[in-house]
């Protein structure tokens, strides 16, 4: 298998040179950190990835979890991984000191998760879910519940899960029917079924803690009647752990990310399942949504990470595989074969992969930085500003690296030709693994409606205005460099195009014509993504250009910076022009999907 799955140099570039992680340490919340501590955390992640995760990547796919006698066994590397992450204090590193964390900025956490995910994306589900479930407890539960659950979840001995989906309620969570009834002990009797619950049961954790959505008896219908509960697999009674009537009814046989079981569980079949309310009654969905930005950024990041691993695997192959002759070879019969990296079409595929994976990673880190600034900025105005920016970017961060990551991995497979399609190389596994990222944590359809239907219009478009200001700042910076001027002008025009489309669509919402407003939300997502990712590339190119002009880099270092500028140019030349076709479609009121009768689809 390819040795390289990410570029430490690129990570350093993004973390320190583009996003200036050190700046965050000026904020009180992060004051105990410095660049050296950030680098050490990243190095610790690399060690875990190199020693535990990467070597087990293929094996965990081949030996998928097994369900026998209602028990699930998973690959033993899961245990080693959970222990290493728990011992290193990395599961809840971003949590506050009071909740058992080390107040690590999300920006650095993204770098950590990126390394781990690039090494073995499926395995990181275990820790990602514990961190997400724990975060709900840390944010909304009582101190007593925190004390009971957090230390073990953060140590990696108990597994956290997200128990949202039910057989008839996936995208539409307001339709869940799991129920909860208060008992005299203060606990609730829980009854219901959950499906697709990742890491929902396995033998490498001593207990499974489901953060479960359910309705308290008599609660209002719809979203306003959903509460959040802690439902453990084993509950404590008189100092002993007893079965809590949560039965694993089935395991899904998935296309990818096979290292992590997705299960179907039934709670309260024997009327003996207890759950504990987190926060206030009927606030469950609100709590979940507050935490969703983090989980969604995590999924987008996973897309970028898998795309990165696929890029390095196909790059290595392209350097080594001789096939065919150069288009300009005059003596084709006698000339030796050339390496496939010398074919322009292979270079196109490689550049596209680089543009998507590094652009996607940059975008994810930008969102993480906004999350840090919204959490820790000293004044309220900044907090709000960065929260709005984060909220606006989140659906794009979830979607772009996922949708385009799939494309990117597919191009990676194409670089390997027939070998790419076979198990001899990891590309086919990566192609299967990344596919889920557009489905869970809200499908692309749902993200697109969130972007256009909620985020663009919130506070009368304030978030879009703030984002436009951020993009304009980059555009202005770029004009200072002769070589980048052309691209800054292009981006400014594209920003105008986005505004034109928004101005065309929003009036439909004001007239209550939501059909016309949101029918092509997915295409709007594509349009917005192209512009936002181009902005990220221009940002990276500015930093590279500055470094070339002022640091006199040599050899590989110079090539590194030049490749950043070149990839920016590639993205602007090969991808960005696609905005025109999206805009043409979005500005046309003749929306065919609205007029297509069911009978016309057969």
């Amino acid at each position, binding site marked *: 298998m390819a040795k390289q799955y990410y570029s430490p*140099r690129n990570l350093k570039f993004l973390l320190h040179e583009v996003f200036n992680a050190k700046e965050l340490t000026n904020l009180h919340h992060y004051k105990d950190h410095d660049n*050296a501590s950030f680098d*050490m955390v990243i190095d610790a992640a690399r060690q875990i990835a190199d020693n535990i995760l990467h070597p087990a990547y293929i094996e965990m796919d081949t030996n998928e979890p097994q369900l026998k006698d209602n028990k699930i066994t998973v690959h033993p590397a899961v245990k080693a991984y959970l222990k290493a992450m728990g011992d290193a*204090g990395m599961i809840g590193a971003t949590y506050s000191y009071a909740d058992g964390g*080390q107040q690590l900025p999300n920006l650095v956490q993204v770098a950590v998760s990126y390394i781990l995910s690039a090494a073995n994306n499926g395995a990181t589900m275990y820790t990602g879910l514990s961190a997400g479930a724990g975060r709900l407890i840390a944010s909304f539960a009582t101190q007593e519940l925190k004390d009971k659950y957090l230390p073990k979840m953060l140590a990696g001995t108990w597994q956290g899960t997200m128990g949202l989906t039910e057989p008839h309620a996936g995208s539409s969570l307001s339709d869940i029917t799991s129920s909860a009834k208060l008992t005299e002990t203060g606990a609730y009797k829980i009854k219901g079924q959950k499906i697709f619950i990742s890491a929902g049961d396995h033998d490498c954790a001593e207990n499974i803690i489901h953060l479960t959505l359910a309705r308290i008896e008599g609660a209002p219908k719809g979203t306003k009647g959903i509460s959040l509960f802690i439902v453990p697999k084993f509950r404590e009674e008189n100092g002993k752990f007893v079965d809590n009537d949560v039965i694993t009814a089935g395991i899904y046989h998935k296309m990818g990310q096979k290292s992590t079981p997705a299960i179907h569980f039934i709670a309260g079949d024997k009327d003996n399942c207890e759950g504990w309310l987190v926060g206030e009654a009927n606030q469950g969905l609100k709590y979940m949504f507050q935490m969703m930005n983090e989980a969604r950024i995590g999924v987008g990041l996973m897309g970028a990470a898998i795309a990165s691993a696929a890029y390095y695997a196909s790059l290595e192959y392209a350097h*080594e595989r*001789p096939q065919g002759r150069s288009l300009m070879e005059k003596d084709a019969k006698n000339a030796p074969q050339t390496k496939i990296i010398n074919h322009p079409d292979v270079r196109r595929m490689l550049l596209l992969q680089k543009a998507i994976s590094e652009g996607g990673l940059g975008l994810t880190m930008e969102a993480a930085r906004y999350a840090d600034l919204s959490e820790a900025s000293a004044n309220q105005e900044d907090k709000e500003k960065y929260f709005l920016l984060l909220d606006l970017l989140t659906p794009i961060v979830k979607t772009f690296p996922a949708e385009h990551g799939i494309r990117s991995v597919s191009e990676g497979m194409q670089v390997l030709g027939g070998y790419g399609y076979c198990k001899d190389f990891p590309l086919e596994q990566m192609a299967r693994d990344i596919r889920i990222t557009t489905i869970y944590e809200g499908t692309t359809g749902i993200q697109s409606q969130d972007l256009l239907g909620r985020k663009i219009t919130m506070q009368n478009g304030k978030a879009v205005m703030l984002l436009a200001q951020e993009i304009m700042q980059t555009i202005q910076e770029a004009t200072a460099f002769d070589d980048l001027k052309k691209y800054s002008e292009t981006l400014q025009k594209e920003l105008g195009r986005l505004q034109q489309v928004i101005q065309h669509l929003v009036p439909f919402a004001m007239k209550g014509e939501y059909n016309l407003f949101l029918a092509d939300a997915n295409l709007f997502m594509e349009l917005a993504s192209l512009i936002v990712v181009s902005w990220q590339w221009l940002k990276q190119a500015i930093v590279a250009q500055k470094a070339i002009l002022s640091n006199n880099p*040599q050899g590989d270092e110079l090539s590194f910076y030049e490749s950043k500028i070149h990839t920016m140019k590639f993205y602007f030349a090969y991808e960005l022009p696609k905005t025109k076709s999206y805009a043409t479609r979005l500005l046309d009121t003749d929306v065919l999907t609205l007029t297509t009768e069911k009978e016309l689809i057969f």
Partner: protein
Amino acid sequence: MKILVCITNVPDTTSKIEFIEGNTKLNTASIQFITGPYDDYAVSRAIELKEQTGGTLTVLNVGTAETEPTMRKALALGADDAIRINAEPTDAYFVAQQIAHIAKQNNYDLILMGRESIDFNGGQVHGMVGQMLNIPSLSPVMKLDLEGNTAKMLREIEGGKEYLEAQLPLVLGCQEPIAEWKIPNMRGIMSARSKPLLVVEPASPEMLTAVSVFSLPPAKTGVKMIAAEDAASLIALLQNEAKVL
């Protein structure tokens, strides 16, 4: 128990090595530096011994300011303090002199280091330090246990292994499986910031050797794919091209 571990700051093995300035200097800009892997074993075992004996652990590096992240990592793993001797470690004798100079002032019971650094792979420093301090030095040590003042060791020798016992103080060059590499935890990383890192100037700046020019091995050539059933072509290539048969 006072333990000193000497660590090197070396390019990661996956780094692409490139020379600049007429092949006289390593291009460090694009290189990821790490603790020498053998030194990492020494640090890991030293931490375990420190915990067992309730002793102290100092790490030392002869190097310029750029090596401080490597020292901070050792502090994060559990060392109590660090000493950096502010000089380029280009000559083994010079480095050994610096270590011996510090060791003479501090009376360490145990001085550990890697069996060799992975940049120049000299493997000489532990022997020289032992000589300079007039105490035994052994390498490569694969196992180390302490019973009071006695060190029980397993050492790799030509064609086999030997079990040894010796009295402290000792200088040892370590290799796997003396301990498993440790990963610093978040708490350790945060507390490393407040642990002392002393910078001292070199004692007697005497260099006996200097590198005049580097050269790289020939670049790797392309891979040839041969079908599994076509052993004849493989043999022909191994004979005629690779010339290994």
